[in-house]
């Protein structure tokens, strides 16, 4: 099965910004006053920094949905995405409310307006729903336990938690509108179990000796620096991204990659509602393919990205990281055409990665104990290879004892992100 680095291309907005001058020009074209636009651009600070409180965002332009006259500041976008995709602590509100409702007096007040309890005294209502208060208390305890479990996954469960939050909001709303307490409890128990099932359905692969701890940092990227120079100091995972032809309000994948919750690996689609100015967020595809080095992304020929304006970005990983955690699969299978030539093995699925072996047309391929992903090749990535990043797989890093999603392994290991031009020069950059 052929794969390419952009097969799950999310949309992006428009042509690359070559420099600050054209950036301003573009924003003026979008109908904004220049002064106002400049407020949206974070000032440039040259040179690497030690553990900055807020990650540096050099030359970063505002996020720009492909529909004209719409601009959103990167800081606002980052805050909004962070708000919509929260970690385990977001369960505190639910636990707190459930704990309050487990007090019979509070529960009675919460359901007092329901038609079923019209003309009933507090005492009569209490007698009718007293048992449910106990069940709500148990539910609060169960959600608390779930919080502890899910906290270990870091941001690896934000989409599942968002779903649970939504189910909670719906059920709580229905409770206030007359849903019987017993039904409310049953619904939330079922949703809790269903979310747990969703999380445990993901295959876990052990990575012997693995850790997200990073060593010494390298000198950060410079504006206009050639990617070929940057790639001497970092391993670079790169993508080419193009806008969807049918969604003018979509925020570019490149802009999303620059947000600190994404750390170079966006797993969402986002669009800006032109009327309400609200950001709509939805889950992107389960996997995303990156070329190793900028060359594979620059050389990629895509039906979509060649028609529309493409943008390029590269995630900066520690030098040597890809070789350490990547299983080389590029020349593991002898072609069946009698030439004796080798070809790349197919991409192993999550279960096969967890089992550390798989079959490719009769060839048994083994995966090293310390490996977390395969390095494969397609037409544009023959020279340096490509890597698949998965949201719905987990890794167990025995070196640090961390269990996190495959995606989070990449995010936690990344050091920064750059946008680069079709000439292979750095346009925007951000180090974490």
């Amino acid at each position, binding site marked *: *099965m052929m794969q390419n680095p952009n097969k799950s291309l999310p949309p992006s907005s428009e042509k690359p910004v070559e420099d600050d001058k054209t950036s301003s020009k573009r924003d003026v074209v979008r109908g904004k006053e220049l002064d106002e636009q400049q407020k949206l651009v974070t000032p440039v600070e040259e040179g690497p920094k030690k553990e900055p409180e807020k990650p540096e965002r050099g030359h970063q332009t505002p996020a720009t949905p492909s529909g004209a006259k719409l601009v959103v500041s990167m800081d606002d976008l980052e805050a909004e995405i962070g708000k919509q995709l929260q970690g385990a602590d977001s369960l505190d509100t639910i636990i707190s409310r459930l704990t309050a409702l487990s007090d019979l007096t509070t529960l009675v007040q919460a359901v007092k307006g329901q038609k079923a309890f019209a003309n009933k005294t507090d005492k009569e209502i209490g007698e009718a729903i007293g048992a449910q208060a106990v069940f709500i208390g148990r539910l609060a305890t169960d959600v608390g336990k779930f919080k502890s479990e899910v906290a270990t996954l870091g941001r690896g469960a934000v989409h599942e938690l968002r779903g649970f939050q*939504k*189910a909670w909001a719906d059920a709580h709303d*229905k409770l206030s509108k007359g849903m019987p307490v017993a039904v409310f409890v049953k*619904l939330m128990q079922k949703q809790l179990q269903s979310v747990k099932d969703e999380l445990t*359905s993901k295959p876990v692969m052990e990575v012997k000796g693995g850790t997200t701890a990073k060593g010494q940092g390298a000198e950060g990227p410079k504006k206009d620096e050639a990617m070929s120079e940057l790639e001497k100091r970092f391993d670079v995972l790169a993508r080419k991204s193009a806008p969807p032809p049918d969604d003018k309000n979509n925020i570019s994948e490149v802009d999303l990659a620059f947000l600190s919750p994404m750390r170079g690996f966006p797993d969402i689609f986002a669009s800006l509602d032109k009327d309400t100015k609200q950001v709509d967020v939805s889950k992107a595809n389960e996997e995303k393919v990156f070329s190793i080095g900028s060359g594979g992304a620059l050389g990629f020929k895509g039906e979509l990205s060649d028609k529309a304006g493409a943008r390029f970005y590269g995630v900066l990983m520690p030098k040597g990281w890809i070789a350490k955690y990547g299983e080389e699969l590029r020349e593991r299978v002898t072609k069946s055409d009698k030439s004796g030539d080798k070809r790349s093995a197919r991409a192993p*699925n999550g279960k096969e990665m967890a089992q550390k072996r798989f079959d490719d047309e009769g060839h048994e391929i083994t995966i090293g104990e310390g490996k977390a992903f395969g390095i494969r090749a397609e037409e544009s990535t023959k020279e340096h290879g490509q890597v698949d990043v998965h949201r719905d797989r987990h890794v167990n890093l025995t070196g640090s004892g961390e269990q996190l999603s495959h995606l989070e392994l990449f995010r936690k290991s990344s050091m920064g992100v750059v946008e680069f031009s079709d000439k292979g020069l750095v346009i925007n950059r951000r180090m974490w």
Partner: protein
Amino acid sequence: MDLENLILEPHEGHDRRMGLRTLWQSLRSDASALTPALERFVSEHKSYDIEEAAVLGLILERRARLAGQEPSLGVFARILPMLDGGLDQELRQGAVDAFAGRSPRTTFDALYDAIAEDSLSTIDEHYALWATRTVDQDRLS
């Protein structure tokens, strides 16, 4: 790889998605494309992916229509999130067509009621729970 292998023993995740989509398209003209093994898989497979669940639902919807039956609520649970969050244009259109004459918002409420009443099969309840926490009811028509 034939369709059964592609769906039942996929080498890569998108093998299955591609196979299921081909199966859905085949059912337009060839009801026999849904072999007993595939029918069992399509009916019982548990997915958490909007597009995969949608195409499973669309296959079951087409099977029901070909048999002259109205698809069950569980089938609509598989398809419903595609109306709200799915980006694939072909699947989205399929979802819109499947819901022709049926209110997505009413379906959402019906899913809640069915969960509360324990009236769904295990697999259909899985999709009902998943759909109700995936779909934003306010964005449904």
